[in-house]
């Protein structure tokens, strides 16, 4: 009797905790998005031997987790700004800058390189956040400009060429296998997600983050220090992106002055699959984690099954199309309209027939 009750209680508690961490109610499709997409992709990953003809190995999982590490911090960075209703395109620039700085300054001491990258990322983020908060500028054009400027900066630093990283020890260390499937790099990324989940789920910061994204004016009136939070959010996104870039630079043993838009776009896809909406106010770190894992696994599935490259692109397009369909208010209205027309016409018939 009591055992059953505690069991029920524990069940309810876990549901509640998980629900809160991932983003509340499971009832609506946009809230279930991260879990559904992750489960689907996991299932596909498990089924991939059917197509490739060889069983999955730990190495495949390791590769997926490396892909996760490559994307994760960038996705977390942009995802958090998206929850707050902002959109930090400059993370792609900070990512490049972080890699370049770490590779150039961290030849002797990798830690120094990471610190330099993180400091630069934080500084760039803080300045941007300050501008956006103080002047109330939409973040897209500002961060786009910063992205271009940062790209120019990395070009200037490297003379437009890839810079190699000579410290082979660091390269080996960040990618060494842990438990067969993880590496310090992916572990660090995972820790960042969990840390974010604990902090945002357990303190008032999570509430304020979603409030700022949900209704900026109301948050201000309610007494949330919106401006300070926004500076913080952009500082955080800059830091995370630079850290991600630095780790990637070490892993590749080189830094590319222009990684292109691909990492950014994938990070946005991960955030969107993770249940974050561009309108802001929705999403949580664990959802972002699920979204990022989905994207990383998807890339690995395509690699394992040796599908042509473009199929990844088409898959992403299909997934985003689902998001567009779920989130577009107009589509919901169109369906409602259609339903109304049908019920309207059926309702009309008897009443007209009933007339003398």
């Amino acid at each position, binding site marked *: 009797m009591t055992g059953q009750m505690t069991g029920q209680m524990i069940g309810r508690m876990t549901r509640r905790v998980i629900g809160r961490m991932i983003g509340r109610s499971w009832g609506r499709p946009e809230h279930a998005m991260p879990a559904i997409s992750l489960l689907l992709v996991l299932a596909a990953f498990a089924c991939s031997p059917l197509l490739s003809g060889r069983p999955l190995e730990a190495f495949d999982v390791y590769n997926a987790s490396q892909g996760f590490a490559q994307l994760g911090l960038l996705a977390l960075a942009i995802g958090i700004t998206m929850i707050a209703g902002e959109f930090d395109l400059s993370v792609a620039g900070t990512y490049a800058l972080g890699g370049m700085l770490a590779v150039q300054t961290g030849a002797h001491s990798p830690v120094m390189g990471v610190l330099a990258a993180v400091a630069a990322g934080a500084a760039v983020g803080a300045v941007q956040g300050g501008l956006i908060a103080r002047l*109330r500028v939409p973040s897209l054009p*500002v961060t786009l400009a910063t992205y271009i400027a940062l790209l120019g900066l990395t070009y200037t630093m490297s003379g437009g060429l890839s810079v190699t990283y000579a410290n082979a020890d660091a390269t080996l260390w960040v990618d060494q296998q842990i438990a067969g499937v993880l590496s310090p790099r992916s572990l660090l990324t995972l820790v960042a997600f969990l840390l974010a989940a604990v902090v945002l789920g357990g303190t008032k910061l999570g509430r304020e983050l979603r409030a700022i994204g949900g209704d900026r004016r109301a948050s201000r009136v309610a007494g949330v220090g919106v401006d300070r939070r926004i500076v913080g959010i952009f500082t955080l996104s800059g830091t995370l992106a630079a850290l991600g870039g630095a780790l990637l630079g070490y892993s590749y043993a080189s830094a590319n002055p222009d990684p292109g838009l691909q990492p950014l776009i994938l990070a946005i896809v991960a955030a*969107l699959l993770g249940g974050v909406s561009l309108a802001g106010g929705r999403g949580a770190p664990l959802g972002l984690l699920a979204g990022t894992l989905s994207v990383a696994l998807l890339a690995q599935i395509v690699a394992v099954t040796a599908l042509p490259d473009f199929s990844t692109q088409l898959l*992403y397009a299909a997934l985003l199309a689902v998001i567009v369909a779920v989130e577009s208010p107009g589509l919901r209205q169109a369906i409602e309209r259609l339903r109304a027309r049908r019920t309207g016409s059926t309702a009309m018939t008897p009443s007209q027939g009933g007339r003398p």
Partner: protein
Amino acid sequence: MTAETGAVAADGSARRWPPRVVTAGLAVILLALLLIPAVTTPRFLTLDNARAILASAAFVGITSVGATMVMIAGSGVSLATSQIATVVAMFFLGTQHLGLGAALLIALAAGVALNAFQGAVIGYWKADPIVLTIAGGFAIGGAATWFSGGTTVYPGARGFEVLNATPLGLPLAVYVLLAVTVVVEWTLRRTTAGRQMYLVGENRAAARAAGLPVGRVTVLAWAVSGACVALTGVFLASFTTSATVTLGGTLTLDAIAAVLVGGTAISGGHGSAVRTLGGAVLISVISDVLLLRGYSTGVQILVKGVLVLTVVLVVHVRSGRGRR
């Protein structure tokens, strides 16, 4: 403006400088700041250099003039521009054997159709432009790779070389850029549809409640923009005489940068095609000056970023918008 206090403040009689004058003044100061180093640069004030500037502004300029219309109509930005330009270029070169006219028509139709479709989803379904165009970019890019087999598309005939002509020493693309600017500006200022674009961009909910054709207006803006992207794609294809999946390059962001430097607000309802033309030329001028003075590509990109940032901030502060 929030609440009645704003209305009270502005309803009073005290007048300051009209915003238009201030904006113009700022533009003059900015130009002076840029032009002084320019004219003191050796070889800057030569006809050849002017041609080079215009020529380099033309490709991105054509796309950005079209993108202005999308931004004014309140749909923000398209992130699928490069991919559409690439696909159009492939269509254009792949259909050269049908003759230049037919190939041009097919290319334009492809650009218009692809963009108008995205515009329809945004206009009628209120989809988020960024999410939708990322999806569109993936779909178009993926399909392009699929159908081209990831290889380079070479033309079956050389009819397109007419487009590389340089009447009066200027590339044809420059004339097309000017013509496109005039047409777009005229559409925005003098037609019902153009006015409606400003209104929809200013306040979409109000436009809907007023019974304005929000969907149709949005589709039109995207279609025009698609035609512009297609023109850019056609010129890119003619210029490079072959098309690969990476042909579009950095067109997407370059075009947005030019629109922003032209002072168009990303939130919609304000802006002009002529100013975008100015933005595109300004970016070219700066790159040119830096190039002539021996600065690297990196510095050119860096300065471009700083320029975009400056203009965005100045325009925003001047118009006093975006108070949420």
